[in-house]
């Protein structure tokens, strides 16, 4: 159909998907589909499929659809039709080519952001259905190369970035020394049993963004928090296995994270500004392990900052002057209800806060989350093209600085800003806190 932007993003070859697909035979596909549908899904999926009246009202929820010239194949129900719909119609007798394309659809054309559940009159959970497709593809070994590598890292090292145990501890000590130049009595307490808080981060922090650990240490020390970080595996709260459909690895990761908190006898886990990790620890991983709610209370950074500012444990020297806008990450706002608290925090820190529209639960996705950015460079151009609506939304604010309290969103939005040449800086909230807070002499 003319006008659709689809041609720029089709026929992407991914080594993991190609090689995985080449090994498949039809019988194996049928068996795996049958086993996933029979043993891992149930009536809920069937009811979703039967209840969907093909009204298309979910379409306007999805940034892929909106950005791709309203091409119907990118609508939430359109993606279900192209994946599970075919699987049901053909009773699981689908080809390796089909599985390859289903893997691409489910992992790079849907961020499992759940915005569409708020637009479908029946609350049909398309994100869940896409995760079922990912699970099938995972079991068939047809997963994009880059995110699969991340899942391998998880399974070998219990962290996302192949960080070795000594590297982890070294990085913390290095950041401690750096911060001591500014704040001589500062400590990053390791393995402190009985501390009130265990602070956990995602592996990209020690790997590429060690300054975030530095800033967290300054904030913790200034606020006088009784905190600790683990020196053992279990320090990483991230979870790409949840997104590839490798739930067994996800379970091991979350268990090691919770076990570490239990071993350190902390009262709660505070986590850095990451969205997917919050979803994994707060909502998904705990369920896989049989916990209705997380066994240790989970506090996202946004909520932690809110508590600190509210209680006056952090004081603001001078509010941030540049105009800022705030991106609401799906996993902590739609998934964690932190919309009001994040606004309290931003208003406490900044003089000039401009809302983007739509916002809160209705904010548009960054198009990085849900494991999409982790599918790597082959899909980067597609990720840019299929989120034009986000670029337009950012430009409309006219703000100088974009705040993104989530790692995936941060990286994805940084790419969007670059691709669409938007004149905007991007920052984490902790960057602002660090800049405007009163620090002890």
């Amino acid at each position, binding site marked *: 159909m003319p006008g659709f932007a689809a041609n720029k993003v089709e026929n992407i070859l991914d080594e993991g998907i190609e090689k995985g697909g080449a090994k498949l035979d039809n019988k194996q596909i049928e068996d795996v589909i049958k086993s996933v549908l029979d043993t891992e899904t*149930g009536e809920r999926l069937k009811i979703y499929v*039967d*209840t969907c009246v*093909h009204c298309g009202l979910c*379409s306007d929820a999805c940034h892929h659809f909106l950005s791709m010239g309203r091409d119907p194949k990118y609508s939430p129900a*359109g993606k279900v039709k192209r994946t599970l719909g075919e699987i049901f119609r053909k009773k699981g007798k689908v080809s390796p080519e089909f599985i390859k394309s289903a893997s691409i659809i489910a992992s790079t054309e849907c961020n499992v952001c759940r915005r569409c*559940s708020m637009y479908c009159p029946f609350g049909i959970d398309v994100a869940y259905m896409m995760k079922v497709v990912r699970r099938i593809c995972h079991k068939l070994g047809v997963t994009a190369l880059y995110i699969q590598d991340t899942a391998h890292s998880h399974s070998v090292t219990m962290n996302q970035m192949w960080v070795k145990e000594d590297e982890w501890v070294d990085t913390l000590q290095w950041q401690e020394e750096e911060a001591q130049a500014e704040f001589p009595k500062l400590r990053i307490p390791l393995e402190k049993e009985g501390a009130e808080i265990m602070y956990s981060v995602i592996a990209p922090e020690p790997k590429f963004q060690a300054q975030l650990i530095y800033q967290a240490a300054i904030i913790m020390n200034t606020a006088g928090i009784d905190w600790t970080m683990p020196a053992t595996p279990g320090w990483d709260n991230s979870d790409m296995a949840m997104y590839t459909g490798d739930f067994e690895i996800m379970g091991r990761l979350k268990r090691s994270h919770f076990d570490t908190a239990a071993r350190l006898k902390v009262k709660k886990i505070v986590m850095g500004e990451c969205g997917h990790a919050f979803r994994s620890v707060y909502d998904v991983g705990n369920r896989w392990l049989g916990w209705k709610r997380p066994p240790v209370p989970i506090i996202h950074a946004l909520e932690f900052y809110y508590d600190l500012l509210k209680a006056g444990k952090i004081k603001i020297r001078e509010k941030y002057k540049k105009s800022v806008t705030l991106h609401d990450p799906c996993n902590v706002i739609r998934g964690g*209800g932190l919309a009001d608290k994040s606004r309290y925090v931003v208003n406490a820190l900044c003089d000039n806060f401009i809302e983007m529209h*739509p916002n809160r639960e209705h904010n548009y996705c960054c198009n990085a989350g849900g494991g999409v950015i982790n599918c790597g460079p082959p899909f980067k151009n597609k990720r840019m093209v299929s989120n034009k609506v986000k670029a337009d939304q950012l430009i409309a604010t006219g703000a100088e600085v974009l705040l993104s309290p989530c790692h995936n969103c941060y990286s994805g939005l940084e790419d969007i800003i670059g691709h669409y040449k938007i004149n905007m800086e991007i920052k984490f909230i902790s960057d602002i806190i660090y800049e405007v807070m009163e620090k002890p002499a």
Partner: protein
Amino acid sequence: MHDLYNFVRGPLAWTAFFIFIAGSLYRIIKMFVMIKKKESFVFTFWSWKYSLRSIMHWLIPFGTVNMRMHPFMTIVTFIFHICLIIVPFFLFSHNVLWDESWNISCWSIPDPVADIMTIIVVLCIIFFLVRRLKEPEVRFLSTASDYFLLAIVALPFLTGFIAYHQWSSYQFWLILHILTGEIMLMAIPFTRLSHMLFAPFTRGYAGSEFGGVCHSRDW
């Protein structure tokens, strides 16, 4: 013709009601049993408070962001569903039947009003049909069964309208009316019309997850 009338009015009517009620019960009970067996977490996370909160928002016209984004569709959808439910239940001539068969007598709407509501139902269905054909995102999703279902719902209203106005063979149109009404009834539990049965559960579950776990709205 008379025999046919007796058949659709008698045994087939009973069969249709039986299939509708038993089929609906079967689907709902099966849902509960299977959920209990394989996905019992749905019960764990089910919250009446948040289910009802979500259902209420979706029952109130313009109570959700999406409804406000598509005002015309919202108006048509509400009017359609309201007429669709009221006409068959409260039509005077149906009331006579309820009374004859089960001794239930209830309030009925005046015939001219029912007449207008019937026309509205048919017009709404025409709108849905045009929307299905014209809007790319709806057309892409549409299968033969979707068009078929529109016809299944339209026919009892169309035939009833013709029969009532007695333009041509009254008995022919009446029989066709009863027959198509029975087909629609029997189709409810086994086609997409079952959204009538499942909507409260799917919406309620979404509301429970959004409200209870995520502390956010789903409308």
